[in-house]
């Protein structure tokens, strides 16, 4: 009884996959090339450009910085975002609706504007250290994703469950951790992944906030391309891809990626 999809539909679906996967195949292919310039299909097979990443100090340092930044910014954004999302959903009657709009605003404002205004206020104005400025920038960048995604999760949470726990003698703070949080875990994981990817891939905001001695991996890739045209950037891109996938895998293993199944 299953209807057979039309050939046109199959063709469109195939095209979508080609456009999604194609660039990845090209980048991975180019990173394996034995030539000293970027080319596809690769000529000869070699891992020398992967080795080259670690021979360049700037890459080594920025990989560490980017990872630190992504973990810290995501962590901070969750620390702020979870209580914010909870308050917005729990007490929505008392709070004006514009407040929830405020939390989407940073998504609507171009990141480059965020970067520039932070440069003026935080980096130059308050003269914070570069890493701190970057951390503030990235936290602000990913916070709206955290609030939105966790809010979506909390919106389907029945708060009478929380009241049931309290009536059974569980103090409100404990109830939040033992009852509310486990039931929005899927949202927290989704927020973590979104925030982490956003942070580790960010160029626009970081561009203004990096400075002497401290840079992020995407910025370093940009700087490298301006001077060299060797396959190193392809191999760095592949490395960045696998780092992201690795983090997803770890998050999935430790917290359970159940939200994809729901």
């Amino acid at each position, binding site marked *: 009884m299953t209807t057979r999809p039309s050939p046109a539909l199959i063709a469109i679906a195939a095209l979508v996959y080609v456009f999604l996967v194609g660039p990845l195949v090209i980048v991975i292919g180019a990173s394996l090339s034995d030539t000293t310039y970027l080319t596809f299909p690769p000529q000869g097979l070699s891992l020398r450009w992967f080795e080259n990443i670690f021979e360049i100090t700037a890459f080594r340092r920025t990989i560490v910085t980017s990872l630190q930044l992504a973990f810290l910014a995501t962590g901070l954004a969750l620390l702020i975002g979870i209580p914010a999302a909870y308050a917005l959903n729990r007490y929505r009657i008392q709070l004006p609706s514009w407040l929830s709009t405020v939390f989407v605003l940073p998504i609507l404002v171009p990141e480059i504007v965020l970067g520039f205004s932070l440069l003026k206020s935080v980096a130059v104005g308050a003269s914070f250290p570069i890493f701190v400025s970057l951390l503030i920038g990235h936290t602000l960048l990913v916070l709206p994703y955290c609030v939105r995604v966790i809010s979506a999760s909390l919106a389907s949470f*029945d708060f*009478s*469950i929380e*009241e*049931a*726990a*309290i*009536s*059974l*003698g*569980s*103090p*409100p703070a404990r*109830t939040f951790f033992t*009852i509310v949080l*486990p*039931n929005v875990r899927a949202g927290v994981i989704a927020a973590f992944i979104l925030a982490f990817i956003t942070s580790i891939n960010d160029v626009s905001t970081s561009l203004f906030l990096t400075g002497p001695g401290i840079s992020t991996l995407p910025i370093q890739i940009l700087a490298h391309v301006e001077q060299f045209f060797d396959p190193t950037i392809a191999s760095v891109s592949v490395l960045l891809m696998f780092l992201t996938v690795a983090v997803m895998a770890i998050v999935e293993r430790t917290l359970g990626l159940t939200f994809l199944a729901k």
Partner: protein
Amino acid sequence: MNGGQTNDNRMTQALDITDLTAHYGSTKVLEDLSLSVGAGELVSLLGASGCGKTTTLRLIAGFLEPTKGAIRLGGRDLTRLPAHKRDIGLVFQNYALFPHLSVLDNVAFGLKQRGVASAEREKRARAMLERVGLSPLADRLPGALSGGQKQRVALARALVIEPPLLMFDEPLSNLDAKLRVDMRVEIRQLQRANGTTSVYVTHDQEEAFSISDRVAIMNAGRIMQFDTPEVLYQRPANAFVARFVGFENLIPMRAVARDGETVTAEAAGGARLSLSQERFGAIPDAFTLATRPDGLAVTSGPGTDGIPATLGLRTYLGRAYQYQCETAAGHLVANGALSTPLEPGGTARLVPVPDQCCVLLEV
């Protein structure tokens, strides 16, 4: 009750609410509400949505703070106590089970908060599940249960902590009709067996009347009448309660003659009726006579008694015909015998049956 022996005092405590007033923002939702629930008694708060019944329950539970008034439970003043210290068992409309915990852990949750050791906790939770007939489902997650099973788990979870007060917030309204009747019997039996003082919130009159020792009928943040179901059903104290329990016809009357205990009263249009003060109590000069459609007989035979009426729409009720009638005393609804169907548009007389009438002091 063997399990509750040590807690007998704790589990039979009286609830006293005095002058409870509450606001949502600047809207007053509850006004000077006073209510006493005797130890071991089940009292229902009955009314339409927005009447303040759920607000009252939430105030007792501690989820809302009153503007004024006091809530006392067996000598303890609950008014300013945080919700988690009130020791009240709650059963919610939508069950509110913990979705991430097994049925057993749901039931054991309250015991865990009370520091009961793990083995003892499991023993008592299992015993309670046994009582509600859910032992085989102890290891399931709530998502795998039917509505009726979920409500039984919720009931077990609230009962296992042996609370001095048990409260129900529309516990059956998400269940289908048949299950609703079964569950309310079950709730009543468990409540009776435990002797737990209980407050039951519902908008369903039949449910409230069948399950309760006493019912408080509420409207606009006040209790309109608080009495046993029998009294409420037969002798409503005011027009609101009268309409609520089905006295559809409210006929304004005037006493025109008094002869000992017998009062002759007249309705608009001149229809007269003799009423005994022995049955109705002191009858003032102006009052309202309340009847159900059954208490107003439609006749077209000879005679001059009753209220002259023009018959409107006729509907078939199975045991009688019901007529919408226009009279000098206003629109009335009356029932007539199946043996003598009358045609709409015709005239007839509506004769109140004193046994089924009720005298309201309001005009």
